[in-house]
């Protein structure tokens, strides 16, 4: 009974706390601007099935794909076992599903166990890849102590989880022989069926019960800790990969989102539409993005979904040739800035109010927020200017993140709102505007054709 009460308290507290953390992530994502991304649901579900469930894009690199698949399928399957732990924990029963599932029960558990062993091997391999083999994408400059620690913590957490499962099942198998009264025979488990007797066969009943409970608690506590750790970790992708692939932009990659404000103004300037009465308010309009609040919410969801795997950076032509740009860093910066803005809004301190809202008794929201900083404090111009818009990063990302989109939004801000940007571009702009060509050349545009006829 005591165990049931302790269990319920821990579970409810952990879920409540996790709920709060996830709502914060949601709020931070919604710091971004609205963008409607719900067209063509058929295609969207297809993306979720193929890319998130099916791991399609992972299979561009076979070794990590197979290793990742083991961990991923083991993760999905253990949910069955987890559900049973919850029922057992709340109602003080033992292996609740066993009598109902009959012969299916040992088959399911065996399946989970085999996958767990594969996941165990994969986890060790991943730890080795990260820490022993010098795979360059894990050691770029943006991979500071925290991202590295984060990656290792999660892998160690996975090992703990697996140890929990095998202690629990292994001790249970032995107990089924010693005390069939309480530990009903469940049929043969593929791994613990022999590993259990091997490891714990020599113990007395008291020791076995302790091991069984230890494994059971270790399993559930690791899961709950994991749930609360995810929102501050790159491992949030195990949740966000699904919505993120669903909401991925479906338009052609080649299309930069149109800016109707600019289009309409240019149209009226060119006399194509009757001059719209542009009620120019005092504030100059802002174009593009300089902060998380002017990015699309999807850019921020991308940032929270990013697993920091660096596939994007490892194919980026700018990064490969030693430029400062790293698409992964762009995503990490957006996430860090979203966290910063979120925390400051939560602090409710009035010094973060916009100047014109200061004397009024407004609550701090994303609309009146101004801490004197912006994304440009995280991302330098040099990084933005190095991008060739080659889309290699977009192609590489296994969870359909688009690192190029925020880069272009920041470029728009720099050029349109700040009238800044590389000096080299100015002659090109002027030339396109005045003579309709990227180069200022006095010749007629069809001179080549006339020459060709002549020759």
């Amino acid at each position, binding site marked *: 009974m005591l165990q049931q009460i302790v269990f319920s308290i821990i579970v409810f507290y952990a879920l409540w706390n996790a709920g709060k953390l996830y709502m914060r992530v949601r709020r931070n994502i919604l710091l971004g601007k609205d963008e409607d991304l719900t067209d063509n649901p058929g295609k969207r579900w297809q993306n979720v099935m193929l890319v998130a469930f099916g791991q399609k894009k992972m299979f*561009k690199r076979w070794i990590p794909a197979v290793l990742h698949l083991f961990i991923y399928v083991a993760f999905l399957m253990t949910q069955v076992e987890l559900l049973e732990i919850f029922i057992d924990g709340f109602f003080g029963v033992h292996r609740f599903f066993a009598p109902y599932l009959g012969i299916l029960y040992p088959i399911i558990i065996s399946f989970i166990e085999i996958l767990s062993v594969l996941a165990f091997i994969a986890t060790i391999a991943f730890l080795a890849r990260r820490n022993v083999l010098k795979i360059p994408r894990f050691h770029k400059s943006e991979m500071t102590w925290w991202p590295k620690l984060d990656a290792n913590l999660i892998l160690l957490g996975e090992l703990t989880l697996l140890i929990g499962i095998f202690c629990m099942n292994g001790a249970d198998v032995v107990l089924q022989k010693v005390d069939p009264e309480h530990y009903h025979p469940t049929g043969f488990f593929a791994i613990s069926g022999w590993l259990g007797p091997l490891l714990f066969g020599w113990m007395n009943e008291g020791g076995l019960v302790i091991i069984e409970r230890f494994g059971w608690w270790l399993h559930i506590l690791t899961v709950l800790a994991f749930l609360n750790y995810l929102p501050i970790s790159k491992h949030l992708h195990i949740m966000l990969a699904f919505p993120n692939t669903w909401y991925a932009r479906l338009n052609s990659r080649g299309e930069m989102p149109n800016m109707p404000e600019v289009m309409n103004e240019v149209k009226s300037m060119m006399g194509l539409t009757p001059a719209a009465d542009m009620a120019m308010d005092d504030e100059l309009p802002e174009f593009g993005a300089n902060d998380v609040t002017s990015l699309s919410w999807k850019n921020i969801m991308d940032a929270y979904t990013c697993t920091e795997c660096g596939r994007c950076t490892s*194919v980026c032509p700018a990064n490969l*040739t030693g*430029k400062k740009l790293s698409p992964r860093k762009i995503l990490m910066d957006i996430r860090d800035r979203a966290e910063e803005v979120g925390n400051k809004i939560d602090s409710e301190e009035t010094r973060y109010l916009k100047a014109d809202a200061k004397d009024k008794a407004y609550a701090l929201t994303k609309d009146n927020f101004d801490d004197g900083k912006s994304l440009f404090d995280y991302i330098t111009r040099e990084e933005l200017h190095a991008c060739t818009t080659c889309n290699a990063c977009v192609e590489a990302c296994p969870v359909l993140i688009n690192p190029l989109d925020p880069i272009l939004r920041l470029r728009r801000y720099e050029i349109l709102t700040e009238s800044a940007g590389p000096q080299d571009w100015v002659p090109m702009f002027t030339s396109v505007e005045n003579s309709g060509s990227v180069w200022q050349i006095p010749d007629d545009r069809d001179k*080549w054709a006339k020459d060709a006829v002549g020759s």
Partner: protein
Amino acid sequence: MADVVAAGKNPEILFWVGCAGSYDARAQKVSIAFCKILNKAGIEYAILGKEESCTGDPARRAGNEFVFQMTALQNIETLNMYKVKKIVCTCPHCFNTLKNEYPALGGNYEVIHHTQFLQQLMEEGKISVQGGAFSGKKVTYHDSCYIGRVNGIYEVPRQLLEKLDNQLVEMERGKERGLCCGAGGAQMFKEDEPGDKRINIERTEEALDTGAEIIAANCPFCITMLQDGVKAKEKQDSVMVYDLSHRQ
């Protein structure tokens, strides 16, 4: 175009020449070669001539939406006035912008890249190729970002090359993984950001590693970049950079 329409003709296609095709010495040769092919195939076509303006791709990607909208809306006015339906481009950037970005501004056309068009003509038997100077040579093909990764055209150019009975060798990074030449996103019009190496050099080295004597490409900017790369590697006498339509 104006002349053709004045003569009461309604040409099947519009050849969109682009800034490079109009002004860049190398790309002009591609424009001329492509026109010759069209003539041979008996295709009625027109160009906009002085009425053509930059599609606006580099301005837009640099972030200058105003300049983009100005030139794009101008072009759309012209194209719609002539009731253009089908456009062929030799430049992947023009192709992408006309195809994917003009619809949102009110310009809807069927847009194809010249490699696709050449293949159609071959299938219809309107043109044919012989290996000629290319027979037996080792050729490697560089995927431009805007034809390859952005618009998903990988096989058509390769099939065209194979018709020239040469030996097609792939670079280490090809198709979806093809490395950029370094010109896109308006990089063509500015100095590189500080780094260890220029992107075109990295790509050229990769191309040279295949041992190919010819590097085939489909984009005037890639050609400039790779040609510069080949020069920098002092291989200009033994390795050629060609557009797919050229020298057919």
